């Protein structure tokens, strides 16, 4: 490290980064403030980050009449099931492919890795799911097409490769079969990498929108609901609801409240997730 006396440049950098942080955070704080502000008051001027007239009525409206409770639970269900199933399947597959003595080790690995580079594209995939498999508007469409991410599988496999082989051999001598070795010996040792891929699957599931848009409009998720609100509001150009004089809720206030509901889980999770993501990203650039 070059140690220098602090110069004007260092302080300029601090100012620059303070500015970057403001630009990054302001839009989020603005959304939060609008969602907590009285809806009619917001119409005057939307450029603020501290609620002027604090109220929870936007959230109350959204949860009671906005129809987001079902989409919220759909998002939760999809995230929980997708993550759970995804992690188990990924680890199981990764274990078999980490076994160099498995006679299909090589062909299976190639079969999976190829799909990282070539894909069928949107239309053939759409036709397969909707016309051939008839998975449209079926909960399975959220789970099956993205069951295993090959990238995650490789992460787990290289982690298992780094574990001492002796443990597996000892278990084998004690009479354990391959399945038992996997879930009694290998899985407990894989906790860090399991946490990593679980976060990958969970963030992916929570944020995904195109799957609902393409395949399952009857099973709306929170992201899809928000999309609907965005496109509706586009038509009405944010005219506020005059029929409810006592508790005016504008499309904008609704949109902001839903946006916050969809963002909060990510904001809570991402500080913990980021270091794993970064690890995964740099591993990808170093390994093969």
């Amino acid at each position, binding site marked *: 490290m070059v140690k220098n006396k602090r110069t004007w440049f260092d302080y300029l950098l601090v100012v620059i980064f303070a500015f970057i942080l403001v630009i990054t955070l302001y839009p989020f704080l603005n959304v939060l403030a609008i969602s907590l502000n009285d809806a009619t008051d917001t119409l005057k001027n939307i450029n603020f980050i501290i609620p002027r007239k604090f109220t929870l009525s936007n959230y109350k409206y959204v949860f009671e009449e906005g129809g987001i409770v079902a989409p919220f639970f759909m998002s939760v269900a999809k995230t929980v099931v997708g993550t759970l199933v995804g992690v188990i399947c990924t680890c199981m597959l990764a274990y078999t492919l980490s076994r160099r003595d498995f006679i299909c080790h090589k062909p299976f690995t190639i079969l999976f890795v190829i799909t990282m580079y070539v*894909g069928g594209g949107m239309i053939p995939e759409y036709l397969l799911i909707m016309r051939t498999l008839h998975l449209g508007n079926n909960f399975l469409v959220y789970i099956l097409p993205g069951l295993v991410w090959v990238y995650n599988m490789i992460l787990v496999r290289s982690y298992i490769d780094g574990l001492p082989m002796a443990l597996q051999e000892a278990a084998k001598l004690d009479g354990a079969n391959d399945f038992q070795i996997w879930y009694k010996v290998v899985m407990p040792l894989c906790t860090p990498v399991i946490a990593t891929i679980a976060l990958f699957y969970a963030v992916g599931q929570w944020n995904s929108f195109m799957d609902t848009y393409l395949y399952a409009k009857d099973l709306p998720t929170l992201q899809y609901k928000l999309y609907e609100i965005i496109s509706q509001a586009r038509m009405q150009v944010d005219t506020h609801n005059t029929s409810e004089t006592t508790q005016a809720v504008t499309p904008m206030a609704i949109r902001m409240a839903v946006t916050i509901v969809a963002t909060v889980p990510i904001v809570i999770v991402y500080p913990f997730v980021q270091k794993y993501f970064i690890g995964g990203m740099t591993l990808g650039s170093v390994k093969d």
Partner: protein
Amino acid sequence: MAKNKARKQNDKHKITWETVWKQRYLFMMSLPFVIWIIIFKYIPLWGWTMAFQEVKPATFALPIWERKFVGFDNFMRGFQDRIFKQTMINTLGISILQIAVGTIVAITFAVLLNELCFTKFKKISQTISYLPHFVSWVIIASIAKNLFNDGGVIDTIAGTNLHLMSTNSPLIWVVIVIIDCWKEMGWNAIIYLSAMAGIDQGLYEAAQIDGANRFQRIWHITLPGIRPTIIVLLIMTIGSVLGVGMERQMLLSNGLVQDHTMVLSWFSYLRGIGSSDYGLGTAIGLFQSVVGVTLLLIANKIAGMVGEDKLV
């Protein structure tokens, strides 16, 4: 352990029913996924054949040999489509703007962050800069409406109506690229930062002794140090120049600006799924992939010719 593996490698050559039986659990644990990947990834690959056939909802159920083979007709119809030319211009315009601006912004961010010497502040800045990356495009679209719509935050600050998201012109490209930069800047900088971490610190010390100031050190050490990384990433992005994602475009678009937000993947969706012209939709997708791979190979070749590190 190495010995162990070598021995196992030798065993592998004798494939008998006995070994298959011994490894039955491994088969049970992997075969379902092999079937899964064949269904979900290899059958769609076979779907490329639809690009050369007339495939409509009525003929989709027919076996492949009974469908009408039309050669490049689907491609021709795609290229002659009323909106194809504008779509192509939009795709290239947005892509090139994004590659240029996105790369410069990410590198600048990484260089400045690397120079920041208040460790705690540096860490906080970096963590916060990732936040938009983890948020979905739907949420970003919702936030962008607040900022860029008529009468939104930016109009309020500017004091006039700038029509940022309601002018039917390439202005919307700039808005989309700005939003994309804002979302991905911190994230894209990671790879450059990790490249910078690999630069020999001795170079900086030597330069300092020779009297190089800070900007000279950035210009002559940091930037050349991450040059191979920049080249590799550029080659890879050039391969995806036609692959502008439909999700972002669709979410940040609206009826007023749609002429200038339409990109190839979205066009493929509209014609292929929206109008059920499966053959045409697939043809556009195939066109995107083929051009992408070709450009990637050309860029790679050029990089090699001018003496840069190649991808392969």
